[in-house]
């Protein structure tokens, strides 16, 4: 996940990628977690000071850590601290399933209450502080119908205001990096809208001759 490769961001050439790899830095997470000054020195890397430095990675492995992180962020932003925290525009939680699913199941009321508290924290961040909040969630199979549905159940389904379903697109002439994105919930757009994305090049997939024929 998030493996470094050439072209991922300006200044990241194939040589740079090899150099980082030789220093044990293989993924985006490795790079931003590393001491960049140190990396720059060791690799003789003159990175375009910016892109990767602006990603703050925080680890949280249970709901309480997660709530602490969010509350700290909210506190830092509301105090107008002039640091990186003050200019946070997007918060990404990857994945919310990991911290919430251990709470669910069984008769635990507290678990659901904690989940809703997390929902409230995320929404407060979005609304009061004005950041874009994006979370990832997994799919599970419905017990009765066997159909795939988003994880975390009914109560969580009310929480996101927009939902995009990503699915692997398989078929003749299609490369393994293609994904289909479906808009399944939106406060402003009609649902059912879909688009193909190539996660290898981060653009609209280039059609091969055969599939182009099918489209017409």
């Amino acid at each position, binding site marked *: 996940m998030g493996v470094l490769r050439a072209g991922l961001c300006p200044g990241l050439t194939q040589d740079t990628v090899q150099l980082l790899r030789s220093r044990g830095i293989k993924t985006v997470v490795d790079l931003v977690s590393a001491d960049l000054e140190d990396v720059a020195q060791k690799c003789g890397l003159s990175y375009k000071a910016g892109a990767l430095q602006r990603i703050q990675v925080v680890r949280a492995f249970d709901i309480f850590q997660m709530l602490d992180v969010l509350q700290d962020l909210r506190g830092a932003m509301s105090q107008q601290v002039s640091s990186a925290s003050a200019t946070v525009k997007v918060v990404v939680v990857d994945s919310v399933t990991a911290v919430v699913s251990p709470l669910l199941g069984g008769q635990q*009321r*507290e678990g*659901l*209450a*904690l*989940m*809703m*508290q997390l929902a*409230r924290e995320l*929404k*407060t961040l*979005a*609304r009061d502080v004005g950041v874009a909040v994006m979370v990832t969630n997994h799919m599970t199979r419905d017990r*009765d119908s066997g159909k795939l549905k988003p994880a975390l159940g*009914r*109560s969580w*389904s*009310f*929480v996101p*205001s927009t939902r995009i379903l990503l699915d692997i697109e398989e078929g003749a002439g299609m490369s393994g990096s293609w994904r289909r994105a479906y808009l*399944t*919930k939106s*406060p*402003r757009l*009609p*649902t*059912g809208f879909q688009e193909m994305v190539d996660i290898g090049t981060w653009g609209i997939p280039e059609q091969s001759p055969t599939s182009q024929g099918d489209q017409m």
Partner: protein
Amino acid sequence: MPCKNGLRNCTEKYQLLARLEGRSSLKEIEPYLFADEDSSVHGDILEFHGPEGTGKTEMLYHLTARCVLPKSEGGLEVEVLFIDTDYRFDMLRLVTILERRLSGGSGGSEDAVKRCLGRLFVVSCGSSTHLLLTLHSLESTVCGHPSLCLLILDSLSAFYWIDRANGGESVNSQESALKKCSQFLEKLAHEYRLVVFATTQSLMQKASAWTEGPSSAEADYRPYLCKAWQRVVKHRLFFSRPEDLKTSNRFSLVSHNLKSNSFKKHVFIIGESGIEFC
């Protein structure tokens, strides 16, 4: 006399009574949904119930637009109070709906939109206790705004799990704030002749696969909010959407009038300008 806030003058009390008579009825607010309603009846509490993505909040925006739009554009030109409990209120969406529904060029409609929004009050609440305090404090607003006809609560079930966890083992203490909110809502609806629309989310799955009933939406209904709330609801509207989104964009709702125990089904689509009944 209902209003406690400093109405000592007898004349003022009569004036207030006269203004109360003028509050809009359900039938005026949405004739499609409430055609069978007695138009002299004011002060009802309605519940919009359903799973996510079934159009409950869209319906609230539609009803809000119907109320705040000027009479020249087919609206009622009355005021609406919108209580948002999940940080869900989408101003951009409401403005889009108003713009689409207002005739005239975009130059003219910006002022017109502002005038419409001037008839809307939006309040946010963070907990069920906060909601109760807010309702109490809003009584004076309702008193002072005779053209305020509609109170919207989106949603009433937002604090359900948090309340259940905070109340300890006693169901009474878990439900106490919501019980008081329900009773106060009834008072507001009854004394001030307000129409109250509250959404509740389908948080619970029906334990048994019961398929009887006028529609599967109603069959899926498993009441979980406190009895005090069940008692004050006069109409329950069950929202559902088709299983297969690829073939149909039609949403449906079943309106259950609890007084007369009658059911009525309605079908609608959601467009740029909001809900359109089919």
